[in-house]
C-alpha cells in the first residue's frame, strides 16, 4: 500500500506545478471582469477541445462507470455511460453556434433565461443550475478524498484542503483564462496516462482474456450486450446527463471562449468522440473488479462505487498506484477549477442588473470573492465523506425537467416564461413521483400505491417527456411572440460603455421591462 505521506507529497507536487503554471499564464491577461469570466473568442481548436475534454472528465469517471459496469449492467451500462457523456457535447455542437448567433455578447445561461423568460423562470433556472454544479463539485471533492483515503489512508480533510487550496489559488487569480490553460495541459497529460496506465493495469491482471474469464465466472450477464438492466441504465443515464449538462454554466462559458462558431462546433464534436473511450476505459476496471472477493454489489458493505480503487488497491504495484493518484488529481483539478469559475461567473454576470452601476474593478473583485466562497464550501463538504449520490440524482432530475423548456426559447418565438416554468415544474412532479429516493415520502402521504413502481428509468424518462410535451403544447396556445433578435440587444458585454458615453455597466433587461 502507498503510504499517506507519499500520496500526499505526489498530490501536492502535481497541484503546486499546475497552480504555478496557471498563475504564470494568467499574469497580465485578466484586465477586466470579461476576461475573468468569459475569455471571449480566445480559444483555438486545440485549446477548445482540450478544455472541453478536461472539464467533462472529472474524478467521477473513476467511480460511476466502474460501479455501473460491476453492479448495474455490465458492458451495456458502460457503453451507455460513454454515450451519455458524449450526447450533451454533440448537442452543444449545434446549440453553441446558435447561442453565439442570438446572444453574441452573453456570459451565462441565467442571463439568457432572464432576458428570454423573465424573473420567475430565471430564478428557477438559477437555483437548478447552481444546485447541480455545486453538487457536481461536492461529489468530485468527496470522490477524491475517499479515493486517497482508500488507497493510501490519507485523512479526508488533508486531501480536501490541499486540492481546494491549490485550485483556488490559481482560479481566483486567473479566472477562466487560468482554468482553460491548465485544462489544456491536464488533457495532454491525462490522455496518455489513462491509456498507458490502463494497458499496464490490464497486463498486470493477466490480459483481456483473463478479465473476460473472470467476468464470465462471476456474472456472464455483465458481458451480454442485450442485458435489459444495463440497457435501461444506459438509457436513463443518457437523459439524466444530457439534462444536467444543459444546465452546466461551464459549457456556456466555453461557447463564448471559442475563437468562432466553427471552432466551437468542431471542438464540441471532437470532445464528444474523445470522452466515449475515456469513460469506457475507466469503467472497464469495474468489470475487472468482479473477480475480487472484496467487491460487494448489494446489501450491507456495498462498495461497488469504489470498484476502480478496489482493483488498484489489490492488484497494482506502488508506481502504478501513484500513477492512478496523479490521474485522479488531474481529473479533479480540471473539473474543480472549471466549476469554481462557472458558479462564480453565474452570480457575477447577474450583478450589473442587481447593483447600481458597479465598476469593472468591483465586479472582478466580486467574481474572485465568489470563487473563494464556492471553493471553501466545496472543500468543507468534500472533507465530510457524505454520500452525495442521492443528491446528485436529485439535481439531475431537476435539470432533466428543465432543459427542454429552457432551450426551446432559443428556437421558437412562442414559449413564454410562465408556460415554460409550468412545463418544468410539471415534469419535475411527474418524474419525482417515480423517483426512488422519494418513495418513502410518497408512502408517508399514502399515495405510493396509486403510482407506478419507482425506478430511475421511469422517473428520468417521464420528467423529460412530460416537460418536453408540455413545453410544446403550452407554446402552441401561448399568445406571446418573442422576437429572438431582442436577445442580442438585451444582453451586452459587462465592460461595454452605454451609448450615452457613460460608464454604466451592461444590463440584462427582462422581457417585461423592454416591452414597456
Amino acid at each position, binding site marked *: 500500500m502507498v503510504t499517506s505521506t507519499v500520496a500526499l507529497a505526489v498530490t501536492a507536487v502535481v497541484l503546486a506545478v499546475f497552480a504555478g503554471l496557471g498563475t504564470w499564464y494568467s499574469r497580465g491577461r485578466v484586465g477586466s471582469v470579461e476576461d475573468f469570466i468569459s475569455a471571449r473568442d480566445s480559444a483555438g*481548436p486545440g485549446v477548445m477541445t482540450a478544455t472541453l475534454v478536461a472539464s467533462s472528465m472529472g474524478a467521477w469517471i473513476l467511480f460511476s462507470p466502474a460501479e455501473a459496469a460491476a453492479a448495474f449492467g455490465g458492458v451495456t451500462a458502460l457503453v451507455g455511460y460513454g454515450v451519455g457523456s458524449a450526447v450533451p457535447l454533440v448537442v452543444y455542437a449545434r446549440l453553441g453556434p446558435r447561442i453565439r448567433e442570438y446572444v453574441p455578447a452573453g456570459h451565462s445561461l441565467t442571463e439568457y433565461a432572464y432576458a428570454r423568460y423573465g424573473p420567475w423562470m430565471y430564478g428557477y433556472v438559477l437555483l437548478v443550475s447552481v444546485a447541480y454544479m455545486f453538487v457536481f463539485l461536492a461529489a468530485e471533492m468527496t470522490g477524491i478524498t475517499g479515493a486517497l483515503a482508500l488507497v493510501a489512508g490519507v485523512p479526508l480533510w488533508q486531501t480536501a484542503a490541499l486540492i481546494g487550496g491549490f485550485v483556488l489559488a490559481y482560479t481566483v487569480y486567473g479566472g477562466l483564462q487560468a482554468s482553460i490553460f491548465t485544462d489544456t495541459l491536464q488533457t495532454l497529460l491525462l*490522455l496518455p496516462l489513462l491509456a498507458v496506465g490502463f494497458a499496464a493495469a490490464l497486463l498486470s491482471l493477466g490480459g*483481456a*482474456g483473463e478479465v473476460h474469464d473472470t467476468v*464470465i465466472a462471476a456474472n456472464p*450477464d455483465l458481458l*451480454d450486450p442485450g442485458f435489459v438492466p444495463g440497457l435501461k441504465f444506459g438509457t436513463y443515464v443518457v437523459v439524466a446527463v444530457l439534462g444536467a449538462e444543459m444546465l452546466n454554466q461551464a459549457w456556456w462559458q466555453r461557447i463564448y471562449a471559442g475563437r468562432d462558431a466553427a471552432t466551437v462546433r468542431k471542438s464540441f464534436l471532437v470532445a464528444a468522440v*474523445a470522452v466515449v473511450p475515456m469513460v469506457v*476505459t475507466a469503467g*472497464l476496471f469495474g468489470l475487472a473488479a468482479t473477480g475480487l472477493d472484496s467487491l460487494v454489489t448489494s446489501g450491507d458493505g456495498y462498495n461497488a462505487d469504489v470498484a476502480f480503487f478496489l482493483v488498484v488497491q489489490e492488484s497494482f504495484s506502488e508506481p502504478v498506484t501513484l500513477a492512478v493518484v496523479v490521474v485522479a488529481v488531474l481529473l479533479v483539478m480540471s473539473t474543480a477549477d472549471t466549476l469554481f469559475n462557472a458558479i462564480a461567473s453565474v452570480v457575477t454576470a447577474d450583478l450589473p442588473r442587481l447593483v447600481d452601476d458597479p465598476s469593472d474593478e468591483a465586479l472582478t473583485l466580486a467574481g474572485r470573492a465568489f470563487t473563494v466562497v464556492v471553493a471553501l464550501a466545496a472543500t468543507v463538504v468534500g472533507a465530510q465523506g457524505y454520500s452525495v449520490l442521492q443528491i446528485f440524482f436529485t439535481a439531475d432530475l431537476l435539470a432533466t425537467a428543465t432543459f427542454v423548456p429552457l432551450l426551446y426559447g432559443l428556437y421558437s418565438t412562442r414559449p413564454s416564461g410562465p408556460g415554460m416554468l409550468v412545463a418544468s415544474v410539471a415534469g419535475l412532479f411527474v418524474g419525482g413521483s417515480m423517483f426512488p429516493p422519494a418513495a418513502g415520502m410518497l408512502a408517508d402521504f399514502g399515495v405510493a400505491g396509486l403510482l407506478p413502481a419507482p425506478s430511475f428509468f421511469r422517473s428520468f424518462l417521464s420528467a423529460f417527456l412530460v416537460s418536453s410535451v408540455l413545453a410544446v403544447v403550452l407554446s402552441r396556445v401561448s399568445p406571446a411572440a418573442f422576437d429572438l433578435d431582442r436577445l442580442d440587444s438585451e444582453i451586452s458585454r459587462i465592460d461595454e460603455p452605454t451609448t450615452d458615453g457613460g460608464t454604466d455597466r451592461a444590463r440584462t433587461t427582462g422581457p417585461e421591462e423592454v416591452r414597456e
Partner: protein
Amino acid sequence: MGLGVTAFTAFVWVNVLLVLAVFAYEVYVFATEYRSATH
C-alpha cells in the same frame, strides 16, 4: 448471449487505442496551430 473472448479483447483494446488516437489528434492540432502562428 455474452461477448466472446475475442470480441471482448477487441473492445478493450480499441478503447485504449481510441484514447491514444485522441491524444495524437490533439498533438497534431497544436503542432499545426503553432506552425501557422510562427510562419
